[in-house]
């Protein structure tokens, strides 16, 4: 490959200048003239039927425009997780407002008022009478109480089983079992969910959203409201984080409905408590694993059963269950693999998409299990994994797709060296109050949806009259630098600085179809589309230059914003001059539009190493050192790629140690805000070293693969394994709160 000029550099996010001055208008800052404010009325009970709604006191307030509720609104159902009208496996089980409330936080009504304060005050005045039904708050309750159906069709909403390969009996094989559970967690994007919509005369509407998929939002809204798609324009606004929490359409349908009914602009901005209780959480899971291994440490058989708590609506959790079965064989060679996943409805907060889509959950189960096997075989955890990890070009046993340039072994080897694993693992953990341990974990994730869903993107790119460029694409930047990545890729192909390329975000009325920021597809699929469209424009640019320079195209190349004649360092023509001169001739605009189809789905990998110190007196765990190694193919924007790992590790440490949305016996979440939902803060974060493994060979732009999701996949199990090393425990119920750690140490001597 030729030397890269811009790819691999480090660039701030594209709107950094507006972010440091406070001038960027986020969704929550967005206003329109005459805009009304909505506030939701949420169910305070976990399961029941609405008998009566009395909004008279609320509607008596002068600022209140109207109250909508389940007794006077359409009962059309929708699926919040849908991204395409032709999609399978979507449960249309939700309505705008619920007569049958299924969790604490279910929407019962919405108050619309001229000010936010009035809407909040009026919502408290809406009286709702309920008839309570038995609340099923755990998966066990939901499966045993067949007499209580959260939705018609039963509480076991989906089962998926995969079996591949053949079991081989080996004498003296070692069987190891484990059961692991992971909590439901809050995404904790700093900006709460928000949506603004305006109904237009003539039946159309515009919706401004901070979501990860504008076309997906449109399919949900248009079908629900019975509007033709071309009458619904969805515009993506700058957003303060998502992590999957804004890939499903929860506030958008409601706001679109209110705006259409009232023919006024309406804004709904949730508060933190509503975000935690009434949007969605990462599903709680429980996975039992049984493996069989030869005595020298080769996996023979891997069997797993995963149970996912979908909460009160199915949402994307059944798909999540499918994807949990597709993680193990991306990382490990297993002759026989069987995995059953079961998705169960409960009367708890709705679960759905979260960074990693089942991979972090499975990584906790698999990687804590692998440490148990290593321990049973008296093998070092790194050594044991090296006996079983996949090699480049292996076929994924479950999906049948090539894993591509899978460099997971290289990640593990180089990481173990950089972390000084062997020495640190051999160090005594200590016998006093503070115990120190190290742990390692492997994670694997995908690159887009190819293999499960038609995977493609569309883009148009044009050269402006002054030689600058504009990319038209339905990009959705959650804040991690999606737009910058596209600019760097296009800049590399065209030989211009990325800042000479403008790229905006999705606007369904303007930008071509794309699914959005889903499934680790952005760099690998959307980025490849950007590379292709830039190559098309480069070809047209070279043709125009060839014409002007009276040189064959083969003699020309691009560099530094100009076309140069090869082997002639004197002759060049700047893009600006090409744009002007060819524009005056017969090429009014140098531009191209392409559709790119992905035809591969290699794996991205991360191997992470944690050092922890556990205080045996308080049960508190401090992560004292951390190394994240990533097989990302190619870092397009190096600084931001590394930054993704550091942020992902913050999220994973919280998953391992403290984050959890608990639900009490009445189904109420004990978590009402950041006061009792702790995400790791600056003093508690270790310095995270990042080591990137880069190579060519996969179909992404310049070899690049996904990073945002894989970066958090193995973090939690690395921390848990380190705690288990420090304490000689086999803890596998997350999070490892001080209470759980103290319970595990009970009865043991701890010298001061």
């Amino acid at each position, binding site marked *: 490959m030729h030397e890269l000029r811009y790819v691999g550099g480090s660039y701030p996010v594209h709107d*950094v200048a507006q972010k440091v*001055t406070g001038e960027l208008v*986020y969704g929550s800052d967005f206003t329109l003239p005459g805009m009304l404010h909505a506030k939701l009325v949420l169910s305070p009970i976990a399961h029941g039927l609405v008998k009566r709604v009395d909004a008279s006191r609320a509607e008596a307030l002068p600022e209140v425009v109207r109250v909508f509720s389940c007794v006077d609104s359409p009962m059309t159902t929708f699926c919040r997780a849908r991204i395409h009208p032709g999609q399978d496996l979507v449960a249309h089980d939700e309505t705008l407002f619920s007569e049958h409330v299924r969790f604490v936080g279910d929407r019962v009504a919405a108050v619309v008022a001229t000010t936010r304060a009035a809407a909040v005050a009026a919502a408290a005045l809406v009286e709702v009478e309920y008839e309570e039904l038995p609340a099923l708050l755990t998966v066990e309750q939901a499966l045993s109480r067949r007499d209580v159906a959260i939705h018609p069709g039963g509480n076991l909403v989906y089962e998926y089983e995969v079996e591949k390969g053949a079991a081989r009996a080996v004498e003296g094989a070692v069987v190891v079992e484990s059961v692991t559970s992971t909590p439901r967690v809050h995404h904790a994007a700093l900006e709460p969910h928000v949506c603004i919509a305006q109904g237009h005369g003539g039946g159309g509407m515009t919706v401004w959203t901070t979501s990860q998929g504008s076309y997906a939002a449109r399919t949900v809204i248009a079908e629900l409201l019975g509007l033709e798609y071309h009458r619904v324009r969805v515009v993506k606004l700058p957003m303060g984080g998502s992590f999957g929490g804004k890939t499903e359409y929860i506030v958008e349908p409601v706001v679109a409905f209110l705006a259409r009914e009232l023919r006024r602009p309406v804004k709904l901005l949730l508060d933190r408590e509503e975000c935690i209780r009434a949007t969605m959480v990462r599903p709680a899971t429980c996975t039992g694993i049984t493996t069989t291994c030869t005595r020298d440490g080769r996996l023979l058989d891997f069997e797993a059963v995963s149970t996912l708590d979908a909460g009160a609506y199915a949402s994307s959790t059944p798909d999540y269950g499918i994807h949990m079965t597709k993680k193990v064989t991306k990382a490990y060679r297993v002759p026989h693999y069987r995995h059953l996943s079961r998705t169960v409805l409960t009367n708890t907060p709705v679960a759905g998409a979260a960074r990693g889509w089942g991979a972090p959950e499975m990584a906790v189960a698999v990687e804590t299990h692998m440490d148990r096997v290593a321990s049973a075989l008296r093998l070092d955890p790194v050594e044991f994994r090296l006996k079983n990890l996949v090699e480049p070009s292996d076929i994924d046993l479950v999906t049948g797709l090539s894993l591509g340039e899978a460099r997971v072994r290289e990640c593990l080897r180089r990481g173990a060296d950089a972390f000084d694993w062997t020495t640190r693992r051999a160090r005594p953990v200590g016998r006093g109050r503070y115990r120190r341990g190290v742990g390692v974990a492997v994670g694997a994730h995908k690159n887009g949806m190819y293999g499960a869903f038609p995977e493609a993107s569309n883009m148009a790119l044009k050269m402006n009259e002054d030689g600058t460029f504009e990319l038209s694409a339905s990009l959705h930047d959650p804040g991690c630098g999606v737009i910058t990545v596209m600019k760097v890729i296009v800049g590399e192909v065209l030989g211009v600085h990325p800042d000479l390329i403008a790229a905006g975000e999705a606007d369904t009325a303007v930008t071509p179809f794309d699914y959005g920021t889903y499934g680790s597809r952005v760099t690998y699929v959307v980025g490849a589309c950007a590379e292709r469209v830039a190559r098309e424009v480069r070809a047209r640019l070279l043709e125009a230059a060839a014409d002007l320079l009276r040189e064959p195209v083969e003699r020309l190349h691009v560099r*530094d914003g100009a076309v140069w004649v090869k082997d002639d360092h004197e002759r060049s023509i700047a893009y600006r001059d090409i744009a002007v001169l060819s524009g005056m001739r017969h090429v009014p605009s140098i531009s191209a539009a392409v559709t790119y189809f992905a035809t591969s789905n290699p794996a991205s990998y991360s191997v992470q190493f944690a050092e922890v110190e556990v205080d045996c007196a308080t049960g508190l765990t401090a992560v004292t050192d951390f190394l994240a190694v990533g097989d990302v193919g190619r870092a397009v924007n190096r600084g931001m790629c590394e930054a993704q790992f550091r*942020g992902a590790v913050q999220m994973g440490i919280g998953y391992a140690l403290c984050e959890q949305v608990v639900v009490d016996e009445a189904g109420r979440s004990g978590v009402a805000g950041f006061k009792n939902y702790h995400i790791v*803060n600056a003093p508690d974060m270790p310095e995270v070293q990042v080591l990137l493994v880069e190579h060519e060979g996969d179909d992404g732009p310049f070899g690049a693969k996904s990073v945002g999701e894989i970066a958090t996949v193995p973090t939690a199990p690395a921390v848990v394994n380190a705690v288990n090393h420090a304490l000689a425990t086999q803890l596998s119920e997350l999070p490892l709160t001080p209470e759980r750690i103290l319970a595990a140490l009970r009865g043991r001597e701890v010298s001061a």
Partner: protein
Amino acid sequence: MRLQLTVNGTPRGLEIDPTARLIDVLRDELQLTGAKEGCGEGECGACTVLVDGKAVASCLMLAVQARGREVVTVEGLAVEGELDTLQQKFVEYGAVQCGFCTPGMLMSAKALLLQNPTPSERDIRVALAGNLCRCTGYSAIVAAVKAASGQEAAPLMELPADPGELATEATSDPETLEAAREVARRAAEPRRDEEVE
């Protein structure tokens, strides 16, 4: 009720609801939307502003409590378009991703540097303990604050290029350009002839 205060150096007088929070007056009345509301309970720090030089969660303070005092928001950090050193270092060190915590981070860091111009890394982390970030893992933010206090490490990011500089970066060599112009001119002529015919 009437409220008099100074915001970003400008004296302001306005009619407010006595129960209004400072964040609402800043965002809704003064259109200073830099301060963000991430939790409304003083836990996330996104709404941090300076009141008489001290970092304050503007969601926990009544506007009336700021009477007669000097409030600085993120919009007041840059002077006549010139970024404050802290803002500049946040850009250079890649301390910004989604950016929703950034205004609060900047103001907490500003309060720290006003009190302690050469903080240790621990001082910085403790000063930012009340500012949550879900994107960065804090490293780049801490490095940026350190750099702003003169403890510079190697900046992580390439700065956004100066548009003026970029526009002049590529120039055609004069001879080639003149020849190309001639080609364009000549190529245009026969067409005109064709039109005449």
